[in-house]
């Protein structure tokens, strides 16, 4: 596996290369929640970084810690019960976890913005969308109510909501799902932040609308040269837009790779399982393997209060051996700017 890959994002930076400061770098982040059943370790040492103009897709099942990581970056974790015992979140080289609450607030919305999954519940039902959009300008830039409204209309036009001028006073429940998600996107874009975190932005939408919303997001990202962290469990969403992918399992990153590399030759059995469980039309991903079977990963994601020893994936892994039960694998360097947390990545890649 030594072919030099055509990496989609030229600006893509790797965590370890240390040259220049990435836009956002998460280092050894840990997050835990105190629950009735004990301490749930939602995030256990996550490392990733995003550069300006780059799209990083974070892939994983629910409970893998992908959203919790995002909330920790935004500083919107519920604390308590949540707690960040360890780690750094460097934004342009500054550790956000050490910043004062007021400094963090000023980063939110202005420098880093977030798009949530369910726009209906994430927008305030009793305030007009114009008010909610305009609020960004009024609070962060001190604009008057009137100017903020004008900017809100501009934004709505920007995300291609028809008849923005007439609809600026409407309430979220009066819009369709796709339109509501466009409003969420508009809100995140309002102050032209450096980084947008989109947490399952299309999951709640109809399939037909998903592509439109995703395309809009990708287009705007290119236009503003923003960094984008795209959190999803849907491999289909990722393929077209992401530069790199980080796959998470049980609060850890198990594989990172440029998007096409990962699709072609996964280097971790979990990623392989994910790819095999997606029904696809067209040619099989492994040339020459002929028809491929649709397989699912057996078993369930682990209970976060009792994460298995060693490699957390070993109880579900078809390749698990004794050493997987004992020692936790490091993120091994795999040729082609990628990494895998599997002792047997060579076997997996060679498959």
């Amino acid at each position, binding site marked *: 596996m030594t072919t030099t890959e055509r990496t989609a994002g030229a600006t893509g930076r790797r965590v370890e290369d240390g040259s220049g400061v990435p836009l956002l770098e998460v280092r050894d982040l840990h997050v835990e929640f105190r629950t009735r059943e004990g301490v749930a370790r939602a995030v256990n040492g996550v490392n990733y970084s995003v550069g300006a103009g780059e799209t990083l897709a974070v892939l994983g099942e629910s409970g893998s810690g992908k959203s919790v990581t995002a909330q920790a970056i935004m500083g919107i974790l519920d604390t308590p019960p949540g707690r960040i015992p360890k780690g750094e979140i460097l934004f342009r080289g500054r550790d956000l976890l050490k910043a004062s609450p007021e400094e963090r607030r000023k980063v939110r919305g202005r420098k880093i913005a977030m798009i949530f999954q369910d726009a209906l519940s994430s927008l305030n039902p009793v305030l007009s969308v114009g008010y909610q959009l305009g609020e960004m300008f009024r*609070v962060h830039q001190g604009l008057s109510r009137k100017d903020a409204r004008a900017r809100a209309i501009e934004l709505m036009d920007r995300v291609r909501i028809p008849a923005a001028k007439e609809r600026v006073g409407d309430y979220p*429940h009066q819009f369709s799902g796709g339109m509501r998600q466009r409003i969420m996107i508009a809100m995140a874009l309002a102050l032209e932040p450096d980084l947008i975190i989109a947490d399952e932005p299309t999951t709640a939408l109809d399939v037909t609308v998903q592509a439109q919303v995703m395309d809009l997001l990708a287009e705007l990202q290119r236009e503003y040269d923003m960094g984008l962290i795209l959190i999803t469990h849907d491999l289909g969403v990722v393929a077209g837009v992401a530069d790199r992918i980080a796959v998470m399992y049980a609060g850890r990153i198990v594989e990172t790779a440029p998007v096409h590399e990962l699709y072609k030759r996964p280097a971790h059995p979990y990623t392989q399982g994910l790819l095999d469980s997606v029904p696809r039309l067209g040619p099989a991903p492994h040339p020459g393997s002929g028809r491929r079977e649709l397989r699912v990963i057996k078993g369930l994601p682990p209970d976060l209060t009792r994460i298995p020893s060693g490699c957390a994936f070993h109880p579900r892994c078809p390749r698990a051996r004794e050493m997987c039960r004992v020692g936790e694998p490091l993120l091994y360097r795999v040729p082609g700017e990628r990494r895998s947390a599997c002792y047997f990545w060579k076997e997996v890649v060679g498959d």
Partner: protein
Amino acid sequence: MGRYVVRRLLQMVPVFAGTTFLVFFMAHALGDPVAALFGDRAPDPATAARIRAELHLDEPLGTQYLLHMGGILTGDLGTAFNGRPVTELMAEAFPVTLRLTLVALVMETVVGIALGVAAGLRCGRRADTAVLAATLLLISVPTFVSGHLLQYLLGVEWNLVAPAVPTDASLTDLLLPGLVLALVSLAYVTRLTRASIAENVRTDHVRTAVAKGLPRRRVVTHHLLRNSLVPVVTFLGADLGVLMGGAVVTERIFNIHGVGFQLHQGVLRQNTPTVVGFVTVLVLVFLLANLLVDLLYAVLDPRIRHV
């Protein structure tokens, strides 16, 4: 919005008619106002017949009700025990009670919501538990008990306030009576606000507001409070009825010459027409207030008005 208002107004018509009729019916069909007027004495038949005719009690019930409502709508409420027109008593009594109720309403709203927000934001912590326990105690002490206690302690033992209120009671004279009247409701408003805040604080849209980088104060006032107030406003409308009943008690304790005092006099002197007249007017005010609350409800929550 327009359709919602019209629908509400139309719904109010039968309710207005029904409620006023019910008040009338309770006094006239279930009891005998004339016998009540004489108390334990057996009325002289001639006098009784004269009073019956005067009060139209010899007419069919429906006619009586129409005459009664006609009287109320034209401002003729009959004559009280001391020979003065009931309307005149009302003109004296209403402003006082209005001030008293206003003081109580402002207290329960301001203090109740403030305490409720403070507790709701600290849900599960010590301050929250303390507020909950305190409200539990407040709810358990009926108005007439807390009224006598506070009057005794503050007015008599510690001499902090005048134990009785002058006839032309000003707002400051009514602070203590207003507080007494407000106490139980205040506790309910606190609990209701707390529950509502604690529920809403975890909603997605509040999380969005935080993620937008809004200052905490703005998140609470503009995003959390507004949504949490809908049930509180509904409660305040219904609570006005409780305050009216409580005013009867409070006015008796502090010797305030308001509606409650007149009602109480009417009951003591068994003067049914006075009582029915006063109660009917109060009920109309109550219904109107609730209509107002309904409209406010639609202002607070746009989802209601677009149904």
